[in-house]
């Protein structure tokens, strides 16, 4: 992960007593390649380095240079990534949380995981199918709901999402939470992004959660930007964090979207799901 690599880079400063501007420049130059090799999007690497360049100051030896470098870099990364905070609730009734993201990113599975997590916190949760395209997509959500003891409702009618039915359901529902699983879409599919904008405008969900595959490559920054411009993304859920030792995509998406990583998916089972904390649970991503 990123953390272990940065620690490795900093270890060469352990023997140093002071930190000169020249040391800082060399460190930043090495850090650039380290972040690229950790799969952070290039544009985010460049921005992050600029921020660090402004923050890092020469040290006269009161603080160990290695500790100082680690503190500033980790502090910056942790701040960008954000961390778990309780999900927003609708004071006037059913809270709607929308799950959005690329094809295959893990939205449907994550809906079940998040639903199960909220249920264990005492919430009454409904998993709502709002993906009219994926063959057996609604069935997949229904099976997962049944396995985790969650309610299920399909809002797909004749190849499209029935928004009025969702609104009707929300009005009458005595449940606490409706998790809407939407169709996967690329950041370059204009009509699909438009559909997403309409959905969020019509439903005014309490949360729009971007499900991001932790294994994304350089494209992560552009993906985050497109979704951020399309709908009011309020949080990130990192999926398949068990598949990656680099963690770059998490940093890219958090940086560009400006919203925190709230949860992390760490496996295929409904219990492989945890609130995101940059220092401990992010060990999987930050290493």
């Amino acid at each position, binding site marked *: 992960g990123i953390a272990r690599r940065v620690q490795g880079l900093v270890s060469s400063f352990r023997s140093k007593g002071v930190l000169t501007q020249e040391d800082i420049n060399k460190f930043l130059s090495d850090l650039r390649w380290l972040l690229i090799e950790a799969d952070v999007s290039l544009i985010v690497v460049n921005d992050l380095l600029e921020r660090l360049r402004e923050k890092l100051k020469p040290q006269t030896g009161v603080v160990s240079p290695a500790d100082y470098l680690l503190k500033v870099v980790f502090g910056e990364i942790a701040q960008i990534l954000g961390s778990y905070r309780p999900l927003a609730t609708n004071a006037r009734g059913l809270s709607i949380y929308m799950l959005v993201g690329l094809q295959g990113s893990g939205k449907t599975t994550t809906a079940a995981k998040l639903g199960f997590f909220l249920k264990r916190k005492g919430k009454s949760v409904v998993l709502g199918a709002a993906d009219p395209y994926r063959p057996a997509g609604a069935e997949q959500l229904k099976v997962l709901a049944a396995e985790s003891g969650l309610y299920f409702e399909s809002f797909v009618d004749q190849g499209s999402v029935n928004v009025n039915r969702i609104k009707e359901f929300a009005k009458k529902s005595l449940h606490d939470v409706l998790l809407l699983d939407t169709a996967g879409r690329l950041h370059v599919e204009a009509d699909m992004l438009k559909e997403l904008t309409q959905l969020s405008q019509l439903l005014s969900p309490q949360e729009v959660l971007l499900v991001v595959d932790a*294994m994304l490559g350089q494209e992560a920054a552009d993906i985050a930007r497109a979704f951020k411009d399309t709908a009011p993304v309020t949080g990130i859920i990192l999926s398949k964090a068990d598949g990656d030792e680099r963690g770059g995509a998490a940093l890219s998406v958090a940086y560009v979207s400006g919203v925190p990583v709230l949860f992390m998916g760490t496996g295929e089972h409904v219990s492989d799901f945890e609130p995101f904390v940059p220092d401990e649970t992010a060990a999987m991503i930050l290493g």
Partner: protein
Amino acid sequence: KVTGKALTPEQEEELLSRLISADFSLSKARMLVEKIRNEGNSPDVVRKTLLEEAPPVEPLRDDSKPFVAFLVGVNGVGKTTTIAKMAHLYSSRGLRVVVVGADTFRAAAQDQLSLLVEELPVVYVGGERGSDSGAVLFRALEENKDADVFLVDTAGRIHTSKALMDELGKLIRVSKKFSAEYPQEVLLVLDSTQGLQGYRQALSFVKGAPITGLVLTKTDSTAKGGMIFSIWDELRIPLKLVCFGQKLTDIDYYSPEKVVDSIAG
């Protein structure tokens, strides 16, 4: 976009950045820029160098009948959808195709694949969720002795999982009961949006199975697939199929020119 003259240092930096953004590994990107600089810096040299370094076209080993192909890969990359696309490709040529739904693990995996191919003139063999995937494959091969093509879908699993490698090994052994030639292809499906992670997946998968080729999916995204250069360079695994959408017809054979053009811009 470089136009006409030798590359300036700024243009070289821009080329390096473009290659990194196209998911080339750092070492590969640097090596390419070095090669381009030594060969004289021009847009034609960029294209020519990329073509030289690109994986060659290696056709699918589908000329012997029956032809058995496994599709493997991590979760959500597009294995199931690609199986359906290949089923359409082969069945529309009049070949007798058997689609083997050997993902007996994931929720609604069987429903998804059987729905995807239900309009196609193919045989679908699947199994109950939780049943043994080897038994599904065995039954498919046993009950369709006159088929031309067997397309085997497998469960997605993280590339570092030993359980995956064991299951893959088991499926290969089952197919070998019918012919030493099987499977002629074990295709590793890579999601182009995962960039260099795909290269790491390839490193892992080759330890557990004889990977014969790659499928690159979701190229309708903006990802350029640069990691296939490293996979060819270090593992000698060629790219065979490219997918660019969710329709059954959104599949084509790999073309080095098309890949290079999308990178060179």
